[in-house]
């Protein structure tokens, strides 16, 4: 469903991704783990089109000196080079790092914004109902301004908003950062549930143990490169990988 081929991204003179290739098949939950600064978020931003958009927005300045080479295919179509809104409309949706809710909008307006491309009142109602079923707390807080939600609730909102777009492939960037172990557990359970409901997923996480346990396959990204990939057992069987990258 998603295929990344030899993706290289440079910001000015820093190479943030170096010949990265990965594949996500229909229905899978693929994990992407790795240390801080490995390039996980950059990879998400490159796939969703935000890297090129950033280049466009900062053109003419040093920060806009961004190069991106390689190919990204989504459902057989080449998408590197497309603007982010076009990629999102195709069904490849990123639930961004730090949640990024529209903070002055109410919870319900945030969800409505997610459904921006969903046509028809009925389709909107149905999706909203599904999201409320999955995250009852959002219904309870529907009229509340989203900036006043707790961290866990904001993450639920970010996920709910992403679901409102009716994604085919959902990329989630570091959903568990800054959450308590209890909320984390709840969140991972929801993520598994979303995947089982038929949405393919690419999950970027710091929490290696949880991610490997949930994901069918995982990639390890370190120093801008994919250093290993495979099922949990395969990754754990390799002593070097286990100790130097997974810390387990």
């Amino acid at each position, binding site marked *: 469903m998603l295929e990344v081929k030899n993706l290289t991204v440079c910001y000015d003179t820093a190479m943030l991704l170096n010949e990265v290739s990965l594949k996500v098949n229909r229905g899978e939950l693929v994990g992407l783990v790795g240390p801080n600064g490995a390039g996980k978020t950059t990879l998400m931003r490159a796939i969703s089109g935000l890297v090129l958009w950033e280049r466009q927005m900062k053109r003419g300045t040093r920060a806009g000196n961004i190069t991106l080479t390689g190919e990204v295919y989504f459902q057989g179509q080449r998408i590197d080079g497309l603007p982010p809104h076009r990629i999102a409309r195709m069904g490849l949706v990123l639930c961004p790092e730090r949640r990024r809710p529209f903070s002055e909008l109410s919870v319900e307006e945030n969800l409505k914004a997610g459904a*921006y491309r969903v046509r028809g009142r009925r389709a909107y109602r149905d999706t909203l109902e599904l999201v409320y079923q999955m995250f009852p707390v959002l219904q309870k807080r529907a009229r509340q301004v989203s900036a006043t939600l707790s961290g866990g609730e904001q993450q639920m909102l970010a996920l709910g908003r992403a679901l409102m777009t009716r994604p085919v492939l959902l990329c989630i960037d570091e959903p568990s950062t800054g959450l308590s172990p209890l909320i984390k557990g709840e969140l991972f359970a929801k993520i598994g549930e979303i995947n089982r409901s038929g949405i393919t997923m690419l999950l970027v996480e710091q929490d290696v143990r949880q991610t490997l346990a949930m994901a069918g396959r995982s990639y390890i990204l370190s120093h801008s490169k994919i250093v290993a990939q495979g099922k949990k057992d395969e990754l754990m069987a390799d002593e070097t990988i286990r100790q130097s990258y997974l810390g387990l």
Partner: protein
Amino acid sequence: MLANILVTTLVNGAAYAMLAVGFSLIFGVGRIINLAHTAYYMLAGYSIFTLVRVAGLAYVPAMALSILLVTVVAVLCYKLLIDPMREHETTVLIITIALALVFQELMLKYFGGHFRSVPGVAEGSLSILGVQVTRQQAITCAVLAVILAAVWLLLHRTRFGLAVRATAQDMEAANLMGMDVSRIATLTAAVSAALSAAAGALVAPLNILEPHMWLNPLTIILAIIVLGGMGSIKGSIYGAAIIALSESLVIFLIPQGSFLKGAFSLLIMIIVLLIRPEGLFGVALEGER
């Protein structure tokens, strides 16, 4: 006296609010400080003047046509001059002030520096709360209020309005929701200019037209924006009300104080900047990379 202050506040406040809301909209969505914003207000005044006095149109069709014309000019300016430079904030300031000056010089060239006036739709006056209000003032104020309400509805009750507010808060997240932010910014530029033109068109019969008429409202809306908070629509409306009220207070309570009103607005702006730089309803711009 009190009633006089109230009426002046209402008429001026509504016009300021309309200018400030438009200014805030394009700042919020495009992060563009458009110093040419009130030049559109001036252009609309001159356009009405030309259509009414030279072409002989009636006031209402002239007004509609003027708003349309000015909006088209503004969108062209946005697309050709402002949008390509958007990421360079200082350059945008220079471009927009240059635009305003170009419009001013063009008006000077074609209409000269004389004071001009535009006839209104209604003659005579009526008495509200014991104050003599000209019919033109009353109509202007009512129409301004209706337009402001319509803008509020547009922002809060329509899909486009939701996209505008979402984009203003987080452009990247808006992108990820499938919103075409550059198209939304262009549409917002059009709405913003149309509001400025409408304010100009409505106020034209009450004011004198002259080529420098954009400068004074520009400084006042800057004071309003600082007071209300950058990019906040609610802040713009409250800010406009407060500045308009303080202006009327200065005019009516200080003997021969009307020349002080601009200074007073700017004094408020400086005090706000010192005490609460983010303004009444402003939000610190965070979460942008």
